[in-house]
């Protein structure tokens, strides 16, 4: 059984319909630890020792956050800068995170289509997430494609429920070890791996 650590960063969680739905009842599930960063560190003063300990106790790490200005909210970046220390996470003897799995679970206002070379945002989500990918690589971790709920501005209740169910089954499969890493790495989004038919994401 794998243990999952969700590093969740949202400065206005109380206003986020999508993230609230995604995280509902998640923290209480066995094998999953929810680390609500903005609740834990309202002063941005991250307790590095605590975070390291948490990381060591889990095999799978999820950076869950809204996609703000093509990146994560500031506190998650602060977390990455502070916790992934040289000599611990990377560099000489920095092997403590070696072979742990990590990926981003994000929510974006725009749809999948606007994140494409021809689209409004010109680049794909994967391209925007390159800094996260390389950070994971630097720390000798295995980086998976992102899980994304997109077009949140126009999401209907049914669509949202669909995403919630997808995320829930993703977490289940990860906890139970029901996956093959090489297979997963091939998809663009974890959503596609779970739901090859592409379901409700509009073409």
């Amino acid at each position: 059984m794998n243990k999952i650590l969700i590093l969740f960063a949202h400065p206005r969680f109380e206003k986020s319909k999508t993230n609230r739905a995604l995280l509902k009842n998640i923290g209480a599930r066995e094998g999953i630890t929810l680390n609500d960063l903005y609740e834990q560190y309202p002063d941005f003063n991250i307790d590095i020792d605590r975070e390291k300990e948490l990381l060591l106790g889990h095999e799978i790490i999820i950076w869950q956050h809204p996609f703000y200005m093509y990146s994560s909210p500031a506190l998650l970046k602060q977390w990455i800068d502070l916790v992934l220390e040289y000599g611990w996470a990377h560099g000489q003897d920095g092997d403590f995170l070696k072979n742990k799995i990590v990926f981003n679970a994000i929510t974006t206002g725009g749809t999948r289509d606007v994140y494409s070379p021809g689209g409004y945002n010109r680049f794909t989500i994967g391209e925007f997430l390159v800094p996260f990918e390389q950070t994971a690589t630097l720390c000798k971790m295995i980086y998976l494609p992102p899980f994304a709920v997109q077009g949140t501005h126009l999401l209907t209740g049914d669509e949202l429920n669909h995403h919630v169910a997808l995320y829930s089954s993703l977490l289940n499969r990860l906890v139970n070890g029901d996956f093959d890493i090489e297979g997963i790495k091939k998809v663009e989004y974890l959503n596609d791996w779970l739901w090859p038919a592409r379901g409700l994401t509009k073409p």
Partner: protein
Amino acid sequence: MSNIFLHDALIYLAAAVVFVPIAKKLGMGSVLGYLLGGIIIGPFFLGFIGQEGKDIMHFAEFGVVMMLFLIGLELEPSNFWRMRNLVLGTGSVQLGITTIFIFIVFMFIGFSWQAALACGLALSMSSTAIVMQTLREKGLTKTQSGKSSFAVLLFQDIAVIPILALLPLLAISFVHAPATGNFALLSGLPGWAQTLTLLCAVGLVILSGRLMMVPFLRFIARIHLRELFTAAALLIVIGTAYVMMLVGLSPALGTFLAGVVLANSEFRHELESDIEPFKGILLGLFFISVGASINFSLIFNNPLMIAALVCGIVVIKAGVLFITGKLSRLSFDQNLLFALGLSQVGEFAFVLFSFIHQLNILSAQWTDILMGVTAISMTVTPLLLLANERFIEPRCGTKENEEKEADDIDVSNPVIIAGFGHFGSTLGRFLRANGISATILDNDSDRVDLLRKMGFKVFYGDATRIDILKSAGAEEAKVLIAAIDSPETNYDLVEKTKKLFPHLTIMVRAKSRLDAYELLDMGVNDIYRESLDTSVRLGIDVLVKLGVRKYSATRAGQNFIKYDEAAMHELAQHRHNQDTYIFNTREQIQLQEHLLTSDREVNPTLNDHAWDSDQMTNEYADAESETTTGNQVSSSLKPFPRNNLKH
């Protein structure tokens, strides 16, 4: 050590230990507890102490002497100057009018004008000991009535000097002052000479304070022996008192003056903390002996006359005080408190009456009667205040609760704030700005009136009273904030809340670290030391002013608070391992020492590697990766040349 001494000490201490807690539990205040204890162990009830109680009273009057020394110490001249109008105004009105009224009454009774005047002056004194103790216990020293009370008491305390000087003049009209057994140098002299001597003595105290006591204390302080300093402090008080007695003057006045002189010296706080415990115990002893000295056979022989005298004097005094309060524009509630609080005859009356008797102005029988009246009036005050708090004010003054209008649905607020001084009010404003309504408990009626006008839901009264807590909605609320200025009251409130309203989250303001320890021991988790955040914030700004970058300084401050809170929890446990009990102030000093050493050992900012790329630079020094791992930012708090940033 004689058997008798141990026997007496045993009885007095036992009386204090038994009766004071009972009185406190019944909400009566410690003064009444001491007085009742004294009455009960006195010659007329249990008879544990007999007539020698009077001797003990002379000994215990030393508590009053020490109290006046402390009051003197608190009277920095600059402080006094700021209060001069209040002191001179209310003080002279109260003393003057009360004396005139009592003078008239006693003339009617058939006293000579000298005796009537002397009695008027003596009886217009109020008891600094009782009033100050009561005000402090009720947390009312900073209210308007508290300030006015202090002003009047101060004026009286000072007025005793000229009164003592004037009394011998009254005796001139008698043929001669007969030589008493007193060895005082004064007693043989004519009135004018006595007056002159007194003024000389006062001058002597002031001069020797300036020229001798301060250099003496400096010398003692350099030896760095704590108990020696305590001894020196006691020596000054006792020495001054002795010299004053020798010339036949009130030792209380001498030490009061010595206190005023020393108020400006650097030893003020040290003297205060050294004398304080002695004063507390002796004052308690004094109250007990006042209780024990009440001559009940005299009362039983003339019950009506004594009762009439007590009532008459208390009514006159309270009436005049009420008018004085009106003149200095006290609100009705504050004025009631002021008038009833000061309505007793004070301990100085004992001194004055024995002096008056010595001068043969008053007969022995009347002296006895009036001293009895004084003692009884002192016992009555706490009862009057109690009646005022429970029955009079709730009806006539500021109501405990606001009258509900017919259509006003009583909504219970989730938060109760007990104490709305500078701490509670900031908190309350913050909550209100964020749309959280809080119920407020406060015992300053002026503030309560103001807050009600501003639309706050306010309950007036002592927050530690269970009925008030209940009607403030403690049963429905979620959070209770104990923000009262006095730590003792906060403890009391916490204890009662934990027992009776266990569902409430208690969040407590702590004055100091020791205060926080007490609260930790009581099982409170949410403790807020009022000085911690502010002083660290100031420290952060100091770093900034010295050129440290703001974020680094802020981070250092955040880490320091975190570290300090952790250290507090640790040291709180450590405290119980000490097998020696140390005095409060000494404990504080030892704690400081401990903290300062451990701060040096575990500098919370030294282990902060955040954004520190020194190590990394070494490894990647030859690789091009250095450019990819970001800027080099040093975490050590060195001044950063900020000018370079301005391009």
